[in-house]
């Protein structure tokens, strides 16, 4: 703690990298030049599903300025990538979706590379196409991958208690099918990579990956070189949101071209390519059956989902890890059963995306919370409060809620939005003549807030040095992806060492320098890297104070660091820089350098998906107010009132920004964004028809923080990166019901879909085949 002087915790601290970014000085991957670099382009399949009969690259190779044209035949040493290793970067004999990489070119300029692509001839023999999971699961359907006879890529089964017993005890049982749609990340910076080999065969990769240390291992295996010979530098990233957690084909392809040409190779997507060939949040059909007693006690929940996995398996297939947590543990439910089949189709494949399945699960669960409450005649808030988790609870799935501000989130959001009164008033207007209706809806979420033990380690390392001028260099494994982690880490270190923010530099983007970290995902960076940074800072502090105590001949307990000084009680003892120089230039020369590795006290889940996977859990409730024009189907989001259990606010400015951005992203998921995929083809690969929320549509946002001071968290904080996006669609769905009396089970709530639902017309297909 900053013993003397003011603490930085909870203040509005501007991001360290903001001044450069606001001056146009920050160099993103697109802006980097590697001298002598070639420019690469990828030829993608023009067939949804086909056998590749032959590829003729001769004409492309003859084009002046072309240095290499490669196909799978040129890289026999390539290896399958992705979560299930079912995916070769360059396809050999078969393409399974329109994005599939068939050949690649490296040339002097992008224009030449593009010209060369046009000269490559590929002969395909079309194969039957699986446009929907229904088709893929039908008996006799063609098989997309060896070893997956029924096209099921992965299954997940979880159970607690006995749902039959739960159902028998229920006074009300309801069942519905929910349909979730395709969306994609739309990072403003398109994907890109620069690969370069030195003459000795060591690889230098400029990459925007969120998991550099895992990538290193994967590329080393593929290239057959020692991982120590791979260095990954992460330039500032133009948005992540989970899109950069897996190895996607473009990175190995750039590496292949660099190795073959012996030149640096730069590969950048166009926006259209970004839409066509980056991962998605996938369509899910979710059947939910739930029940409760007359007094409002939840009895059971059964969930069956079919995930459209697309043609290959990436993280999207594993979203059930998170979905089942919401199903089993957001509210207290004694009996639960969960099943997911992730099914291969010829559609774009599914990756990880902020919220990781939780948006989908929460959408269904919170709709049923409304419906069950209504069925037993209970107030929507009271019903939720009755079933909400409390601190200290260990759920049947094994999650231990050491801190839990759920009930405070519920009551705070409800009070600040005047939820109960507005609900009633809106319902009273269902039948009046005005075609423009108002509604308010509420939804809550539970998400990991202290990392997630998905890999054997969920840890992060820190190296810290304090130099002769009391300037601190914090070297952390945790990458910055725009979320502001480096500022928070600097802040935590300053707090320990009693230094101003200007005294810290953060180094976080070079695997040759930074210590290991599992990667930026699962809202873990503040929590895990924060604890790691604090650990290193505390060691440095102990070292400094011990030396100071020895020099001054006072007990170390009386000393502290603050305002750039070593204090004894309330008196300035030494100016820190001067003291450190003294320590350094002495006959027992000493520098202050420390290391720390933090591994959270969470557990890997067992085979039954039980275990306390996170060191802390985050909670939130959001109330959304909407206006629905029943004559057009247009839903306007007027206001969001959010209450978030964040453990503790470390940087108010940063956390508000995360929550506001997440709210608007969740709003886009609910109201405007829709990747239209018809016959396995993306129909709207541009911002004109894939609609992100724009400034005039932004709702009023009211955010409250519930500070539960998590014992394990850095200064009491929990992770919040994903939380704000999660309950938006659920709350908006409940608000539309409150406005109109019509419940819509399929996303997105675009004007036409809403209009159809309100007027009883058949739903336009959210994805899959045209009607």
């Amino acid at each position, binding site marked *: 703690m900053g013993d003397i002087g003011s603490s930085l915790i909870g203040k*509005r601290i*501007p*991001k360290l*990298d*903001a*001044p*450069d*970014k*606001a*001056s*146009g*000085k*920050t*160099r*993103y991957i*697109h*802006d980097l030049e590697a001298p002598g670099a070639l420019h690469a382009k990828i030829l993608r399949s023009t067939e949804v599903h086909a056998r590749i009969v032959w590829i003729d690259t001769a004409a492309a190779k003859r084009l002046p300025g072309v240095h290499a044209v490669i196909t799978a035949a040129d890289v026999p040493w390539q290896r399958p990538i992705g979560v299930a290793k079912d995916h070769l970067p360059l396809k050999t004999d078969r393409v399974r979706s329109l994005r599939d990489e068939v050949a690649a070119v490296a040339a002097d300029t992008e224009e030449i590379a593009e010209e060369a692509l046009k000269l490559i001839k590929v002969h395909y023999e079309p194969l039957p196409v699986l446009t929907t999971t229904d088709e893929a699961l039908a008996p006799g359907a063609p098989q997309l991958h060896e070893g997956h006879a029924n096209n099921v890529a992965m299954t997940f089964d979880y159970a607690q208690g006995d749902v039959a017993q739960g159902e028998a005890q229920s006074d009300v049982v309801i069942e519905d099918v929910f349909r979730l749609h395709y969306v994609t*990340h*739309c*990072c*403003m*910076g*398109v994907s890109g990579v620069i690969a370069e080999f030195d003459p000795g065969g060591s690889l230098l990769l400029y990459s925007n990956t969120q998991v550099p240390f895992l990538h290193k291992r994967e590329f080393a295996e593929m290239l057959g070189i020692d991982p120590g010979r791979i260095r990954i530098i992460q330039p*500032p*990233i*133009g*948005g*992540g*949101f989970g899109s950069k957690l897996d190895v996607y084909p473009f990175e190995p392809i750039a590496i292949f071209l660099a190795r073959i040409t012996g030149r640096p190779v730069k590969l950048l997507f*166009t*926006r259209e390519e970004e839409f066509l060939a980056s991962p998605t949040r996938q369509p899910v059909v979710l059947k939910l059956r739930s029940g409760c007693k007359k007094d409002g006690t939840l009895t059971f929940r059964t969930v069956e989902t079919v995930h459209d996995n697309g043609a290959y398996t990436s993280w999207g297939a594993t979203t059930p890890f998170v979905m089942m947590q919401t199903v089993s543990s957001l509210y207290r439910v004694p009996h639960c059963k969960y099943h997911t089949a992730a099914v291969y189709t010829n559609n774009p494949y599914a990756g990880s995306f902020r919220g990781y399945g939780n948006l989908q699960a929460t959408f269904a669960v919170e709709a049923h919370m409304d419906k069950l409450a209504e069925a037993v005649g209970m107030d929507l808030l009271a019903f939720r409060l009755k079933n909400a988790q409390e601190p200290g609870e260990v759920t049947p799935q094994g999650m231990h809620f050491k801190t839990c501000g759920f009930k405070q989130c519920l009551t705070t959001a409800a009070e600040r939005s005047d939820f109960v009164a507005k609900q009633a008033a809106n319902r009273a207007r269902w039948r009046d003549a005005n075609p423009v209706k108002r509604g308010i809806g509420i939804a809550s979420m539970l998400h990991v807030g202290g990392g997630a033990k998905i890999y054997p380690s969920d840890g992060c390392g820190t190296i810290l040095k304090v130099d002769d001028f009391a300037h601190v260099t914090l070297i952390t494994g945790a990458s910055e*992806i*725009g*979320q*502001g982690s480096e500022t928070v880490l600097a802040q935590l270190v300053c707090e320990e060492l009693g230094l101003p923010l200007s005294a810290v530099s953060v180094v976080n983007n070079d695997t040759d320098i930074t210590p290991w970290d599992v990667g930026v995902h699962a809202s873990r960076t503040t929590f895990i890297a924060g604890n790691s940074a604090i650990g290193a800072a505390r060691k440095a502090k102990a070292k400094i104070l011990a030396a100071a105590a020895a020099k001054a001949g006072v007990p170390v307990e009386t000393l502290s660091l603050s305002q750039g000084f070593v204090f004894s009680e309330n008196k300035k003892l030494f100016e820190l820089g001067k003291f450190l120089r003294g320590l350094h230039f002495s006959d027992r020369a000493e520098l202050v350098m420390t290391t720390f590795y933090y591994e959270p006290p969470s557990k890997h889940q067992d085979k039954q998906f039980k275990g306390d996977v996170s060191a802390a859990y985050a909670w939130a409730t959001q109330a959304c107010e909407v206006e629905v024009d029943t004559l057009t189907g247009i839903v306007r989001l007027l206001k969001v009132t959010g209450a978030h259990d964040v453990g503790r606010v470390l940087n108010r*400015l*940063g956390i*508000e*920004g995360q929550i*506001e*951005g*997440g*709210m*608007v*992203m969740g709003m886009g998921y609910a109201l405007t964004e829709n990747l239209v995929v018809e016959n396995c083809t993306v129909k709207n690969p*541009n*911002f*004109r028809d894939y609609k*992100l*929320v*724009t*400034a*005039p549509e*932004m709702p009023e*946002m009211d955010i409250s923080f519930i500070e539960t001071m998590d014992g394990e968290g850095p200064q009491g904080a929990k992770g919040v990166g994903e939380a704000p996006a999660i309950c938006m669609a659920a709350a908006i769905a409940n608000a539309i019901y409150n406005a109109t009396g019509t419940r819509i089970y399929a996303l997105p709530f675009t004007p036409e879909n809403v209009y159809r639902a309100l007027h009883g017309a058949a739903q336009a297909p959210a994805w899959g085949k045209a009607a």
Partner: protein
Amino acid sequence: MSANCDIEFTLNGVKRQLSVPAGMSTLEMLRERLGLRGTKYACGEGECGACTILVDGLTLNSCLMFAVDCDGRELQTVEGVAASEVGARLRDAFVANGAVQCGFCTPGLMVQASHVIEHNPGAGAAEIRRGIEGNLCRCTGYKKIIEAIQAAEQKNG
């Protein structure tokens, strides 16, 4: 390839002479020919505003503007705006108000915001929102950007 044309224009206060292909966009010219990488590509179709620049005092999407059309005109990019008095005010306000996250949209927004402030001094929140409707931001949810522009505006008063 298209015919090359000689053009002359002022860029951030400095006269420039250049020969560019007739089909080239101003965005490409700025980034690839002149090495000014502050102006960003994020769509190339006028939908995102990341490439916003000032031409003769009005903002345009440089990805939609033919480079040959720069002839005889006065261009300002984010690098020029950042060096101006309004730009400095805006930069400080963007930083202090948390309007920057990944920062990829920020250069375009800085230029557009400077235009909003100069052309509509005293613009309220609603006008600012309309003023930046052509700039997409995926990270911030816009609230802090709007607050930052308002703060920069007030410093002016």
